[in-house]
């Protein structure tokens, strides 16, 4: 009853509260609007377009002809290069992630303590990250080239010695980009050279966020360096490591520039990545429909992978 008796004032108060709540909601919506527009224009709309394209017979030169869903999707895995490209991309991702995160952590540990030359070291490790990937790839293409590369003399010496010793077949001499294995390793070297400083930076920030007190306590307790690293540094660096892994894996699965410049997918189609397949389908075979279907498949794969990784991070954070 009291509530009923108070209802005229209550109604007025409730009305004010509703009005205030609504105006807060509108204000919130206005604040969020720029981001919503950005996401809609630069993400949702392109994805919708790509999906439409992937469901159509869409030529690069003559445009869309008709909806043909799901033909483009069934064509994706039917291509002879699809599964080799998937496996190669995974192989490359594992290799690059192992070296990049490992070396990044090593460099971060090396430069975490302040001393006279640390600034110069940090700068020199980070410097290659400032180069564009295509530029760096072109630089390495020049270095690896048999025609203009300065490293060719080293290879000639290795080949001559190997041939004399009967270890190298003259028809299959070692070259930086001449076989699937050396092309993969040469490209991995470029990527590790270019990006290890960047991952060093991410992990350095994580390292410097670990309180010194913990290390002092461990030292007083007589912990060895390895025990300190395993039981303090690694667990407290977990979030930075997880971030590095996500960036590295996602970036490697989308690898294109470095292989486009260095190998063009060769020799003998041994270094074709999934994104190269998308490019080839779109711009060489002029079939935007199948290229878009490939893009959607890759998008779904990346979404699933990132979801798993984020779940892992959250689970680790809850521990």
């Amino acid at each position, binding site marked *: 009853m009291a509530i009923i008796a108070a209802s005229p004032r209550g109604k007025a108060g409730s009305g004010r509260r509703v009005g205030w709540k609504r105006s807060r909601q509108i204000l919130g919506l206005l604040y969020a609007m720029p981001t919503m527009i950005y996401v809609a224009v630069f*993400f949702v709309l392109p994805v919708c377009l790509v999906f439409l394209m992937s469901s159509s017979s869409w030529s690069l030169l003559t445009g869309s002809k008709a909806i043909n869903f799901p033909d483009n999707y069934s064509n994706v895995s039917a291509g002879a290069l699809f599964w080799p490209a998937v496996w190669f991309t995974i192989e490359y991702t594992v290799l690059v992630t192992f070296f990049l995160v490992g070396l990044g952590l090593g460099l971060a540990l090396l430069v975490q303590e302040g001393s006279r030359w640390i600034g110069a070291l940090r700068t020199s490790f980070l410097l290659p990250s400032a180069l564009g990937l295509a530029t760096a790839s072109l630089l390495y293409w020049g270095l690896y080239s048999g025609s203009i590369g300065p490293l060719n003399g080293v290879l000639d010496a290795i080949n001559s010695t190997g041939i004399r010793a009967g270890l190298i077949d003259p*028809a299959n001499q070692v070259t930086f980009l001449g076989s699937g294995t050396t092309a993969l390793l040469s490209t991995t070297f470029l990527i590790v050279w270019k990006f290890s400083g960047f991952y060093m930076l991410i992990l350095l920030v994580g390292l410097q966020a670990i309180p010194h007190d913990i290390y002092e306590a461990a030292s007083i307790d007589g912990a060895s360096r390895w025990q300190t690293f395993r039981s303090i540094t690694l667990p407290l660096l977990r979030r930075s490591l997880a971030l590095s892994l996500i960036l590295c894996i996602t970036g490697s699965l989308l690898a294109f520039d470095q292989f486009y410049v260095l190998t063009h997918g060769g020799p003998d189609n041994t270094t074709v990545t999934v994104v190269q397949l998308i490019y080839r389908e779109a711009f060489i075979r002029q079939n935007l429909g199948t290229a878009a279907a490939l893009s959607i498949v890759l998008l779904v794969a990346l979404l699933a992978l990132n979801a798993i990784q984020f779940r892992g991070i959250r689970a680790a954070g809850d521990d």
Partner: protein
Amino acid sequence: MRNPFRLSALATVALVAVVGCGSSSTPAPVSSGSAGAGVDDGTHITMWSRAATQVRAQALVDAYNASHKNKVDMTVVPTDDYQTKVGSAAAANGLPDLFSADVVFMPNWTSAGLFQDITARIKSLPYADKITQAHIVASTWEGKEYGLPFVADLSVWMYNKKLFTQAGLDPNKPPTTLAEFAADARAVAKLGNGIHGTFFGGNCGGCEVFTWWPIAWADGEKVMSDDGKTSMLNSDENKAIYATMKSLVDDGTVMMPDSKTEAGPTWTSFFGKGIIGIQPMPASLQGLANSALADADIGVTPIAGVKGGQSTFVGGDSIGLSKNAKNVEQAWNFLAWLEGDDAQINVVAKGGNVVSRTDLANNQYTAADPRVLTMNQIAAKGQTPFALRFGQTYNDSQGPWLILLRDAVFGDPSKIDADNAAVNTSLQSQ
């Protein structure tokens, strides 16, 4: 929680596929244009060309700009990206007034309506029937002509006279069959000390289209059906050519491992260093002007067949008015000048290059250098292959032709027939 990394990754993937997507293309104007020499009124004409022919294209553009009120603003696009750029621009109706094309891509682009019909304009030129017909044929679709030769490029055998002499060969007696080519290369290879018999781009499909197919043509054989739908690259003739090349690889006459890994960008550079005895090359002395090789040491001879004969690949770039051209009359003024005596003699021939007119093959510059005359005269015996799916079949790094040639020369020749079936599949794809 919103994940910025995921968003950026997703956006990247999406954008990869979206690049090049635009409104559907509109059909090319059907008018075949008016006759005459166009208009020279100081207009800036936009033009795209590919980097592979930049030196010669730039010389032509510079000469036109210096002698006309109109100015051609040429954008040079990296060769590997040219197909992509043109395709993307065509889809978005953003092509320039003029753009050139590797002549082998012309059927693909004319059939898709990227160029304007200029049949009447070409016919109005007083020297129309003297223009290199291989380019005109490649630029013709359903009876209408869409392009003219821009930079004519032929393939010839070039040999190092100095190395020939050192190897005991007569520098004035170049090979006239493929067997003689192989024998001369082997003789030079015996010199050793960093000297090699021959070189080819073994990881470059386009290079071997340009330099090996004329060997078959010289014998009167074919590499493809006339409609460009059926490959004959597994014929006995072609297998004999691969076998010769393989024997040169196996006995160390070919420069290895560079030849096996050469993907195209530097395939002509080794000859210019003076370390190769004989190799197929583009017919341009201008391209070797700044090399280590003395001009007097460069010998030029037509590509010969297994049995003899002579032929060449009539390649290079064609050029036409784009479907989106805004300055049609001014752009035609450039094209008409391009095929005229002034451009062909005072720019093209003067630079030691092949002219695009048969009636100008013998000119004041060829008189001074018989090698240029050899180049000009061989054009009449050459061919330009025609296929709608040329790029994806023969130029693509992942294409079936490159697999075939590498199996034939570096790998297992028993796969040639199966590889040829893959070439047919590509040629016949929609």
